[in-house]
């Protein structure tokens, strides 16, 4: 099934592109994204994967999302963070949570944006908790909510609104069997 579809190439390429765009956006617009005291995180990788999982509910299970989530997690940890062992677990958790949620909701725009909202909030929260426990950061919870979570959610919801239709169209077109 998956072997026959063109998604076999398009999904990994899109994932890597989103991965590098995250870094480039953070670098090019750092004046805007990291203006004191706010810090906004771009999560295009999560957007690409979550929209795929949501679309999957409509189509058949063709893409091994968890596998790709682990792989991109390893690359993220090693290349961007330099601290191994966080995103390699967080990305699969996000996939799992999204699957749980899509089972119970119809896959329309409003439900999708709500699911994405929960995903991003969960990702940032777990990231904050894990780094606090390991001792990489010492930031109070209120500062985290005000200066990181709020702007991050805002930016990524803007991404979602803009990119929902194009990315959904890609998945709709290519995730089916080639006829």
């Amino acid at each position, binding site marked *: 099934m998956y072997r026959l579809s063109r998604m076999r190439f398009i999904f990994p390429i899109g994932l890597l592109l989103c991965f*590098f765009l995250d870094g480039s956006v953070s670098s090019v617009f750092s004046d805007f994204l990291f203006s004191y005291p706010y810090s906004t995180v771009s999560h295009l990788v999560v957007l690409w994967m979550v929209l795929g999982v949501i679309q999957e509910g409509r189509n058949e299970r063709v893409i091994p999302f968890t596998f790709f989530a682990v792989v991109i997690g390893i690359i993220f940890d090693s290349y961007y963070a330099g601290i*191994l*062992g966080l995103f390699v677990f967080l990305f699969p958790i996000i996939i799992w949570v999204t699957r749980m949620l899509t089972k119970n909701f119809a896959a329309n725009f409003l439900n999708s944006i709500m699911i994405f909202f929960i995903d991003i909030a969960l990702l940032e929260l777990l990231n904050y908790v894990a780094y606090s426990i390991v001792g990489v950061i010492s930031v109070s919870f209120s500062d985290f909510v005000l200066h990181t979570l709020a702007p991050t959610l805002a930016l990524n919801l803007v991404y979602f609104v803009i990119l929902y239709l194009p990315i959904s169209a890609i998945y709709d077109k290519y995730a089916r069997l080639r006829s």
Partner: protein
Amino acid sequence: MQKFFSNRRLVLICVLLILCFGLMAGSVALRNKKSTPTLVQQFGNDIVGFTNNVVSYPINGIKSGLDSVSELMNSYSENKILKKQVSGLAQVKVRDQTLADENAQLKKELKLQKSLTDYSTVTAAVISRTPSSWQSQIIISKGQTDGIRKNMPVLSQSGLIGRISEVNKTNSKVELLSDSNDSSNRFAIQIKTSSGDVVNGIVTGYKKSTGQLIMGQVTSDADIKKNDKVVTSGMGGVTPKGLYVGKVAKVGKDDYGLAKKIYITPAADYNDISVVSVAEID
């Protein structure tokens, strides 16, 4: 026994949690201890970095195009101010050259081979930035093969911005001074007051809300004023002397009222960096 294993999912989650935190704690410890990451990680990072160049090249091109358009807008007024400065600059440059020559000559006579102010730089382009709110880290396009080693200080055009935190073969990571990691900004610095006194100390923190560096535990009685210049002191042997850090913004008391706490406005903008140079003591 059987009952315990019947709940396989719980066991799996516990194992994964332990693995997760073990890996994180391990890699943080390893990062602080070793000068380079493990070979496999280095190799992976090099491949990813190479691919990243392909993606970031057009984006950086677009950015510099937009920048030049916006610079065109205010070039007239800027030109007026700069013209005045340039005429003075030539004189300063010549004087600087003469002093440097004299300095080299005197050092030669003293048979002083290397001093703390002698350093060379390696210029590198910024490929990417970590998309994370917790790590102010940029990735630059030079690595071990160009002579970059861990803990070297990194400068932008206007001043000190951070230090090398991880070195791969062809790219490396720079922890900016604004990073929340405690060890990232411990630079030995000194303040030169207007009366000629020198106050030594280290950068002890970063105030995110105002974007200022903090130099804590200063017990000197010297009269530190606003706008006094702050440079690296060269103590510790890794950082050369005389790299510009910033200006004094405010002098306050610490929490117990015994020592001074000095707030420094950094000279470099940590959020607008496209080219950096890495300083290396000769």
